[in-house]
């Protein structure tokens, strides 16, 4: 993705790494990204086979229409390192690192990725990292984790392991998660990266799922991990910009186009100043709307940033 700032990561779908019938459909789902799972979804006796399957799948998935992350096994397990060695040559976009409880764990992954990048002869920093914040320790360290590597593009909160580490039950209302979510959000926003909320496991309960998506959107999360493709549309609906937002964004873009013709980067619209941050926000709204099929609009980087 050329410009990471505009990478939409609203819907990030888990796909088990040991099921060919599901992997073959990855290109079809309308989610923004997938987490191909080598960790919890794959039984111990299938770890090897899953690595082969996943690396073959990613290598053949050349017409990428979404980001591909691989959730490897934790680096302190017997499988984590080998997972990396097997899947990175297939060029996923990045790694979702489970149990990222400390910045040191993430830094260790960063080092391994750099080594692999050198070996594979790809640019340093190609492989991104999404650390999973999924324990009390991880929540406490979230602020440092978010800043420990330039590869870290988002923090992903994992409530299932988090509640287990807290020795509490997860509820549908999610009150018990409030503090942890807030801290993960602060850490991500302060570091200027994205924040991805936890999965919602009850696929049958779409009403509660929708409520939770609305809640986390309002809190500031930029996306949500998903366990079933049926959840994708709900996330996109809730995250979709409103019509007046889109209308305003188009006015902003049209105003800035006029401004650039006049040789300036600033213009007034309805008495308010339109400058770079306003244009960027408008562009984000338009790209979101276009990506969801709500709008047919060609938007060039030149319009947003001006001619170099």
């Amino acid at each position, binding site marked *: 993705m050329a410009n990471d700032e505009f990478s939409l990561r609203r819907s990030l779908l888990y796909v088990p790494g040991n099921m060919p019938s599901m992997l*073959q*459909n990855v290109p*079809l*789902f309308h989610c923004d990204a997938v987490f191909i799972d080598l960790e919890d979804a794959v039984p111990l006796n299938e770890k090897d086979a899953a690595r082969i399957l996943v690396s073959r799948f990613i290598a053949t998935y050349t017409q990428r229409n979404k980001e591909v992350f691989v959730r490897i096994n934790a680096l302190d397990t017997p499988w984590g390192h080998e997972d990396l060695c097997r899947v990175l040559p297939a060029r996923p976009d990045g790694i979702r690192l489970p149990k990222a409880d400390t910045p040191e764990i993430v830094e260790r992954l960063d080092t391994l990725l750099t080594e692999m990048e050198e070996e594979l002869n790809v640019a340093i920093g190609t492989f991104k990292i999404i650390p999973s914040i999924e324990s009390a320790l991880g929540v406490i360290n979230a602020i440092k984790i978010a800043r420990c590597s330039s590869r870290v593009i988002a923090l992903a909160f994992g409530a299932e392991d988090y509640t287990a580490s807290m020795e509490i039950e997860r509820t549908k209302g999610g009150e018990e998660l409030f503090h942890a979510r807030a801290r993960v959000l602060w850490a991500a926003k302060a570091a200027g990266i994205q924040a991805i909320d936890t999965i919602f496991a009850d696929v049958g309960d779409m009403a509660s799922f929708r409520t939770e998506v609305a809640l986390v959107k309002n809190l500031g999360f930029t996306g949500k991990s998903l366990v*079933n*493709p*049926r959840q994708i549309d709900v996330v996109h609906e809730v995250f979709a910009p409103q019509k007046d937002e889109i209308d305003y964004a188009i006015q902003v873009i049209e105003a800035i186009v006029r401004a650039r013709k006049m040789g300036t980067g600033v213009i007034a619209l309805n008495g308010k100043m339109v400058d770079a941050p306003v244009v960027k926000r408008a562009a984000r709204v338009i790209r979101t709307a276009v990506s969801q*099929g709500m709008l*047919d609009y060609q938007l060039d980087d030149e319009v947003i940033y001006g001619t170099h």
Partner: protein
Amino acid sequence: MARTSLGRWIPETFDGRLCRPYQDPFSLQPMGQRATRALRRVNPGHNKVMANLTEAILAAGLKDGMTISTHHHLRNGDALLNMVVRAIHALGIQDITIASSSVHPVHAELLPYIHSGTIRAFECGVNGLIGEMASKGEIRCPITVRTHGGRARALMSGEVRVDVAFIAAPCCDPFGNMNGIAGPSACGSLGYATLDADYAETVIAVTDYLQPYPVAPISIAQTQVDYVVAVESLGDPQKIVSTTTRTTTDPIGLMIAGYAAEVIEASGLLKDGFSFQTGSGGTSLAVADRLRDKMLAAGIKGSFGSGGITGYFVDMLEQGLFRTLFDVQCFDLQAVRSIGSNPGHVEIGADMYANPFNGGAIVNQLDVVILGATEVDVDFNVNVNTESNGYLLHNTGGHSDTAAGAKLSIITVPSIRGRLPIIRDAVTTITTPGETIDVIVTERGIAVNDRHSDLKEELLRRHLPVKDIRELQQEIVALTGQPKPLEFEDDVIAVIEYRDGSIIDCVRRVKA
């Protein structure tokens, strides 16, 4: 050998009947008169009730070489056909032809009677093991597969003459008035049996719920019925109708359904007066579900839903989204309850439903039909009869009838099944000609028949994944590889009759 216009080689004759090669969907003109049967006289005091099936068979005069029929409203719960054949066998009668409206997997019980010579042939399509055994050459028994409308045509034209019809009557009186809405074997509509009641030489009503005269409402009347037999049970109610029919939760099925609903919306047909038919499969119901939402959102009032009816359609009738349901077969309990109580829910016969050779069938009034397939090909031909192993496993149903009749016929099908690509260069068996198929919807893209360039442009304008069918095929084959071709022997085990009586394809024995 003769060649159809679609390039299929078919035998000159099959089971003693001349095979007319298929030419096109609409131009074959029928000749002659409707079939008829002998007049009869019943005087006051006449008793129609027979002590048992055997007595009724004897009274009907069933002899070697004759043809019998049943209807398939009891679906895989049907016990009657097996019961009838056992009784025929016990009487030592041989060479019987079965001309039922359909045969289900439960009728695999008939296999020994095919071996023994009690059954000679099937003048109807078969679902399940009988077709498989015929495909393997393990039974010798010619099968003529017909559409629902084609069966109506064949009975009406006299091409198929039923000597004795055994009509499962879920609720019946001693004089033969019957309906399907009450009793332990209630199945709702008796639409496929009305033809047998009209044209069979002798009509025997068989019931497990004999009620005092008169039974009402009347689906099939006493004037059509010669004998009435009470039996303990007509079948297994669990397997006759489903308790409920549900939409799919499979994400691929939902994706296909979503695209299909978008295609319907883009076609411009979704407006007041909209008419629609779909099956009872999970993906079909998911399409209905999406359409219901679109109709409610836009305040659209449809005219009718038709075919096999599910609770989904009943809900749409009750919500005012359709004025009428034309019901030839009920798929679930909710449909059975509705047909017995809602005047807008109309029981129709297979003739009115789909017969091409009458004053006009309901399928001709359809805007949109959603259909399935076991395979499709790059010419939009559809196979629903044979599977990837080449075995004849499915009956045609109303597939070709509704495809020919509807303004927009849409095939919804996953692009891959069990590692096999579903879009082929040529389908194994042509059930429904591509000339009558408008759109094929898969999860990997939507293929539009070249005849509909306007629709294609509109779909592209709406950013739907429209692809040339060959391009779509290549994309699928790139994943699956090209399957090994099936190998067949020369001998023909079944012919696939098109709705007008021409032969569109045949099924050959699979090489062992």
